[in-house]
């Protein structure tokens, strides 16, 4: 964690480094003594189930896009672990400020899978479901959600509420001023925010090394006076430790933390992208050896915490859940045309009502 040294007078000297946290290596072998909550396996099995469900839900989304049943979709293949962890550790009254690759976390927050499909199926109602609570909708313009995160955290502070904001973003987002401005405020106001940078190595076609000259992305927090930590983003045990302690720290009023979860985007940027244009297959094959589901499965098998029968029954359950979500999504009726106008203002102004009547009446003049 960074520290400050008094350099005398106006001058202060910063020194510090960014720790890297890992408990399971890519083969699922512990690299250091494991925390006690791991022992009975319950939480780890829950993480495993959630990751498998997210992966299958993601696979279904891509399949629907490929068959014309859904629009452009950004897959989360390979980066399921951070989401299932923050999704499990946040309290219901906390607020998630996601980017647009957060399906695993949103499912655990209580968002209906059918709403996630509805959203990517081109319908605003997909951001309206009760499952979102006060969580923010997917944020498409990169890093712009960072300002929202610190604004929401400021609201908690103003009202003396012990709630926490978790904001996610990708590696590319850390290059934007929005991100840095938000870190700066979180540092100076000691806001209850967990900044979770999901570094999946690729911002569409731009690799991590071309994005930023810093050794880590986490260290961007140092300039704002925030603790910074890098964590193996494919290791749910490490993620649980780091995200859990950061949420607790924030809730206790001790301020924000910047976490960089190092993972890999095993998929294209979106279904409209072709990653073979800009990255080598070798790199992707190597990344598959480190992916989070296989890693946790290896550990659970080794510990006798997960059996082939359990796997079979999980797959069956997930298939049913996804089937139901697809049915709900596809059965959702189109909104009425008037709803295109209804939500711009609490009360629709007269001029806008007239335009709506034009649209409904098929007239094309004032």
């Amino acid at each position, binding site marked *: 964690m960074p520290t400050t040294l008094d350099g005398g007078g106006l001058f202060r000297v910063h020194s510090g480094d960014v720790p890297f946290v890992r408990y399971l290596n890519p083969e699922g072998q512990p690299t250091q003594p494991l925390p006690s909550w791991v022992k009975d396996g319950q939480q780890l099995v829950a993480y495993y189930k959630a990751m498998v469900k997210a992966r299958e839900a993601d696979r279904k989304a891509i399949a629907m896009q490929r068959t014309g049943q859904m629009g452009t979709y950004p897959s989360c293949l390979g980066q399921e672990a951070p989401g299932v962890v923050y999704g499990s550790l946040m309290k219901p009254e906390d607020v998630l400020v996601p980017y647009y690759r957060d399906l695993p976390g949103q499912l655990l927050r209580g968002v209906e899978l059918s709403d996630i499909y509805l959203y990517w199926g081109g319908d*605003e109602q997909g951001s309206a479901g009760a499952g979102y609570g006060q969580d923010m909708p997917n944020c498409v313009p990169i890093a*712009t959600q960072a300002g929202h995160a610190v604004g929401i955290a400021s*609201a908690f502070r103003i009202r003396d509420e012990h709630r926490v904001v978790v904001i996610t973003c990708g590696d590319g987002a850390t290059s934007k001023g929005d991100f840095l*401005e*938000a870190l700066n405020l979180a540092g100076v106001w000691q806001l209850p925010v967990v900044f979770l940078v999901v570094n999946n190595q690729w911002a569409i076609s731009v690799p991590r090394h071309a994005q930023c000259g810093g050794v880590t992305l986490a260290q961007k927090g140092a300039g704002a006076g925030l603790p910074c930590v890098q964590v193996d983003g494919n290791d749910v045990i490490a993620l649980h430790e780091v995200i859990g302690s950061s949420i607790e720290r924030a809730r206790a009023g001790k301020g924000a933390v910047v976490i960089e979860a190092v993972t890999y985007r095993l998929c294209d940027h979106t279904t409209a992208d072709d990653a073979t244009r800009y990255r080598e297959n070798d790199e992707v094959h190597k990344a598959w050896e480190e992916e989070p589901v296989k890693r946790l499965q290896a550990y659970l098998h080794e510990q006798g915490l997960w059996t082939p029968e359990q796997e079979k029954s999980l797959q069956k359950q997930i298939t049913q859940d996804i089937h139901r979500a697809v049915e709900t999504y596809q059965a959702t009726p189109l909104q009425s045309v008037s709803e295109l106008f209804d939500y711009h203002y609490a009360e629709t102004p007269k001029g806008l009502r007239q335009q709506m009547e034009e649209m409904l009446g098929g007239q094309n003049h*004032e």
Partner: protein
Amino acid sequence: MSDDKKTLVEAVNLALDHALADDKDVVLLGEDVGTNGGVFRATQNLKQKYGLKRVMDTPLAETLIAGMTVGMATQGLKPVAEIQFMGFIFACMEQLVGHAARMRNRTRGRLTCPMVMRAPFGGGIHAPEHHSESTEALFAHIPGLRVVIPSSPVRAYGLLRSAIDNPDPVLFLEPKRIYRVQKQTLPEAGSRLPLDTCFTLREGSDLTLVTWGACVRECQEAARKLAKGGISVELVDVATIKPLDMDTILASVRKTGRCVIVHEAARSFGVGAEIAARVSTELFHELRAPVQRVAGYDITMPYYRMEDHYMPSCERIMSACSRL
């Protein structure tokens, strides 16, 4: 309310003061709004009165101010953000257009943005570069936003109270050229003015002058002078640029048959063009002359030694009116 007469900026201060007192969800934020009370003193003494949790000096970062205002509003606070000058508001554009204006729509009402963004705007005070712009049209173009511009202390108080009450994002632009030129006795504390109605400031029968903000002063002067020459001018202060109250404007032009629109912003693609289009469409057969615009030119706002050449003067307004 006390008998003290107030300037426009004092009326803004009083509206903020009363809103903070009446509603614990109202908070102020911006650069130098706290201890310093704002560079124009619009937030003077409010931090001292309501504390630093409700009147917040932010870091010097406009994008951040806009973003956090959106975040606060989604939590049900009613944040009133100050952008120190309109020339610095462009860093807020992405937040206003991409988030504030569409939050209600994209979540189908699950989350909303009851926020106000205040900014002093306009030329005529011999300010540094980037301190004199009038770009209200950029914001009026955005679905989901409201744009409000007061032209007197009374309207500043009533419109700002309504803007803060309003459940949607409001851009509240304060014509700084007239911050301190006129004192008025304000109506009863807490009084509101509607956010969808133009104000008819002077009745007349020959010609309608349509304007807003600081230009109301030059238009009033022009109307007085034209009256001496026997031309009866009706003067409409638009005040709520968006949503635009066309009913009042159309009723006036229907009566007078002539319409001159006056604004400080650059002429092309502006609010004046929208009003002219609507008047022409609705009143083509009633118009006795083409709709005229007296506006800033399509040039960069001149630095202050030459800014008078840019501003719509009383002479330019009278000349346009006389041509009809």
